[in-house]
C-alpha cells in the first residue's frame, strides 16, 4: 500500500500545485473508495497532503515571484475568519444543500473563466495592490493590479465559511475569485491560492494531530509523494501557457460539478 499511496500522491501533488488547489477534494474520495481507509484518517491524511502541496509548491513559486503575498494575506483574513465562523452557517445549511448549490454555481464559474485574458496580454487598468512578476514562460514583466477587493474579500469570507462545511481547503473557490472577480493573472492566482490553502489546512491539521486522528501509515507515504509531485507541478505550472492552465482548471470544475451533483442527489 505504501508504494501505491506514494505514486498516487505524486499525481495529486502535481495537479494540486499546477492548478492552485490543495487536492483534498481528490485525496479524500481516493483514499476512502480505493483504499477503504476510514473517513477520519482519510481527512487527516488529506489535510497533511494539502499542507505538503502548499509548502512544496511555495518553495518553487517563491523562486519565481508569482505569489502575491499581500493579496494572499488580505484574503486569508477573510477565509480564516469565514472558517472560524463556519459553525454558524452549519446551523442553517446542510452539506447536501451546499453541494447542490455548488453543482449549480460551478458551471457558471467554468463559463465565466472563458472570458479571462491570457497572462501574456497587456493589462492597462491597474487597480489597488499593484504588483508585477516576471513570467518564466515568456521572460516578460507582467504588471497588474487588484480589482473589486471588497467584493473579492467578501466572497473569500463566504468561501472560507463554506469550505469548512464541505471539508475542503477551498482552492477551487480561491482561483475563480482571484482570476474572474479580481482580475489577477492566472499564474499569480494559482501561486497565491497555493499559499492560502496551506494556511487554511494548517489549523485543521493541528486539531486532527492533537486528537490523534492522523495515521502515519497513510499520511507519510502521501506526504512524501506530494513533496515530489508538487515540486514538479509548480515547476511546469510556472512555465506553462496560461491558456493551458485555464483549460485544465475548467476541466477540474466540470468534474467537481458532477461530483457535487452526485453527492447532493445521493446524499
Amino acid at each position, binding site marked *: 500500500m*505504501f508504494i501505491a499511496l506514494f505514486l498516487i500522491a505524486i499525481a495529486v501533488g502535481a495537479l494540486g500545485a499546477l492548478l492552485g488547489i490543495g487536492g483534498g477534494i481528490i485525496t479524500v474520495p481516493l483514499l476512502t473508495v480505493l483504499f477503504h481507509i476510514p473517513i477520519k484518517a482519510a481527512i487527516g491524511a488529506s489535510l*497533511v497532503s494539502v*499542507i*505538503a502541496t*502548499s*509548502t*512544496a509548491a*511555495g*518553495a518553487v513559486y*517563491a*523562486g519565481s*515571484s508569482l*505569489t*502575491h*503575498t*499581500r493579496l494572499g*494575506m*488580505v484574503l*486569508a*483574513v477573510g477565509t*480564516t*475568519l469565514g*472558517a*472560524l465562523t463556519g459553525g454558524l452557517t452549519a446551523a442553517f445549511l446542510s452539506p447536501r444543500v451546499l453541494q447542490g448549490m455548488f453543482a449549480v454555481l460551478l458551471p457558471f464559474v467554468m463559463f465565466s473563466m472563458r472570458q479571462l485574458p491570457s497572462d501574456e496580454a497587456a493589462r492597462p487598468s491597474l487597480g489597488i495592490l*499593484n*504588483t*508585477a*512578476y*516576471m513570467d518564466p514562460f515568456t521572460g516578460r*514583466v507582467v*504588471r497588474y493590479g487588484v480589482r473589486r477587493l471588497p467584493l473579492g474579500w467578501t466572497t473569500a469570507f463566504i468561501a472560507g465559511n463554506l469550505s469548512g462545511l464541505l471539508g475542503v481547503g477551498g482552492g477551487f473557490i480561491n482561483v475563480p475569485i482571484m482570476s474572474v472577480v479580481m482580475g489577477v493573472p492566472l499564474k499569480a492566482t494559482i501561486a497565491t491560492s497555493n*499559499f492560502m490553502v*496551506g*494556511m487554511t*489546512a*494548517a*489549523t*485543521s*491539521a*493541528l*486539531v486532527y*494531530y*492533537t486528537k*490523534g486522528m*492522523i*495515521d*502515519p*501509515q497513510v*499520511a*507519510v*507515504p502521501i*506526504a*512524501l509523494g506530494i*513533496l515530489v509531485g508538487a515540486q514538479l507541478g509548480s515547476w511546469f505550472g510556472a512555465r506553462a501557457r496560461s491558456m493551458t492552465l485555464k483549460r485544465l482548471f475548467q476541466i477540474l470544475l466540470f468534474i467537481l460539478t458532477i461530483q457535487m451533483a452526485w453527492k447532493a442527489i445521493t446524499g
Partner: protein
Amino acid sequence: MKQLDYARLIPDIDIEEISEEDEAALQAIASTRQVDRLVQRLLMATLIISAVLFIAGGVWQAVAHLPPVHHVAQITELTHANGPDLLFSLGLIVLIISPILRLLGVAVGLARQGDWVFVVITLIVLAVMFAGLWIG
C-alpha cells in the same frame, strides 16, 4: 515603504531594456523577491527535515520488521516515543507547522521593508489561526 535595490534583487531582468515607467513594477518584483528569499529558505528547510524524518522512519520500520504504527505521538509524549513512531511524528509536526513558519517569515520580510500595515494583517491571520486551534 523603503526603496529597494532592484538591480541587486532581480539580476535576471535586463534593466537597460525597461523604461522609467516600469520603475514601480521593478520595485514590486524586488519587494516580492526579498520576502520570497526568506520564505523559500524556510520552506526548503522544513521540506528537507520532514522528508528525511519520513524516509528514516520508513527505512527503520522496514529493516527492523517493526509492526506499523497507526497513531502519532502527542507533543507531551514525544520524549517517551521511540523508533519510527518518533521520526514519523516529528516529521508530521514539522510539515504541519510549515504554513505558520511561512507566515512568520512573511511578517519578518515585510517588517524589513517597513510595510507595517501588512505586518499587522499577517499577525491578524496568525491570531485567527490560533483562535481556530483553541476553539478546535
